[in-house]
C-alpha cells in the first residue's frame, strides 16, 4: 500500500487548499524554521487517528484549525484527506473538524467512527501509529523512555 496524495485545507498553517502528491521511495521535505514541515506530519497523525493524536501539538480544535495571522481572520473548519492505493484499489480517508468542536471521519466518502478508520488501517498493516511516525524531538528521548513504552512498540509490531 502506498500514499498517493494528502490534501490539507484549513489545518494549522494550511489556510490555502494544499495538495501534496507522494510517490514510492523517499520523499524529503525541507524549508526554514516555522514554515509548516512538522504541521504536515501533524496532518498525517490527525488523519490516521491513532493513539499519537494525544501528542499532536495542540490537538484541540482551536489549535488545529487555521487561526489567522495579524492581518487575516481565522477559518472555521479544518479538513484533511488522505488518498491510499493498495493492489490497484484506491481508498480515501477524511477527517474534518469545525470550530464548535464537532468533527467527522469518512472512509471512501461514507461517514464512519474513528474506530472504523483504525480497524481499516489495522487490516492494511498500519498499526496504531506507535512506530511508523517518529515526531520531531522524540528520537532523542526514546532510549530513556519507560520500559513499558518500549514494550508497547513491540506489541504494536507483534
Amino acid at each position, binding site marked *: 500500500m502506498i*500514499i498517493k496524495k494528502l490534501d490539507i485545507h484549513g489545518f494549522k498553517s494550511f489556510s*490555502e487548499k494544499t495538495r501534496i502528491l507522494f*510517490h514510492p521511495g*523517499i520523499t524529503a521535505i525541507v524549508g526554514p524554521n516555522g514554515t509548516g514541515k512538522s504541521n*504536515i506530519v501533524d496532518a498525517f497523525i490527525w488523519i490516521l487517528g491513532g493513539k499519537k493524536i494525544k501528542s499532536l501539538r495542540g490537538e484541540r480544535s482551536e489549535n488545529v484549525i487555521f487561526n489567522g495571522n495579524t492581518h487575516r481572520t481565522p477559518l472555521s473548519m479544518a479538513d484533511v484527506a488522505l488518498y491510499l492505493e493498495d493492489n490497484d484499489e484506491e481508498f480515501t480517508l477524511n477527517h474534518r473538524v469545525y470550530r464548535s468542536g464537532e468533527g467527522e471521519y469518512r472512509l471512501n466518502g461514507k461517514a464512519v467512527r474513528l474506530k472504523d478508520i483504525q480497524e481499516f488501517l489495522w487490516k492494511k498493516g498500519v498499526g496504531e501509529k506507535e512506530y511508523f511516525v*517518529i515526531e520531531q524531538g522524540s*528520537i*532523542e528521548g526514546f532510549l*530513556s523512555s519507560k520500559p513499558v513504552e518500549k514494550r508497547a512498540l513491540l506489541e504494536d509490531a507483534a
Partner: protein
Amino acid sequence: SKDQFLKALDEVNKHFQEVFSLLFQGGKADVKLTDPQNPLESGLEITAQPPGKKVQNLSLLSGGEKCLTSLAFFFALFRYRPIPFCILDEVDAALDETNLTRFLNLMKQIKNQTQFIIITHNFKTMEVSDYLYGTTMPEPNITQLYSMKLS
C-alpha cells in the same frame, strides 16, 4: 498471546543486533525483558555497546550514539514487521556525516517496501531522496509548498 510476543521479541532482538552492527560497523546490542519472570507485563530494556567500547549505562552514550541506537531499534521493528509507509521528522539532526550516510543507506535498502517521508535540514538526506518538497511562509502562519527538482 504470550508465545507470540516472546517469539516477536526474539526475532526483533536478532534484527536489532544486525542493524546495530550495520549502523555502528560492529559492536553489540540487545533488547530484552526487564522482568523475565513476568513476560506478560514486563517492560523492555535496551543495552548497546559500540565497537571496542564497554557495555555501560545507555545514558553514557553520546547524543549521536543514542540517536543511532534508537534508529537501529526502529529499523529492527521494520525488519520484523514491514510497514507500508514511515514518516520521520528531523531524526537525523544529531548524526555526524558518517553515521548519517549509514542511516541513509539503511533507508535506501528498504525504500522499495516502505515509502519514506522525511523532514530534514540535511543536504545529504535531500540528495538521496527521490522527490523533494520545500516549505516557505511568504505570509506569516500560511505555508506555501513547492515541488523541487534535484539538480
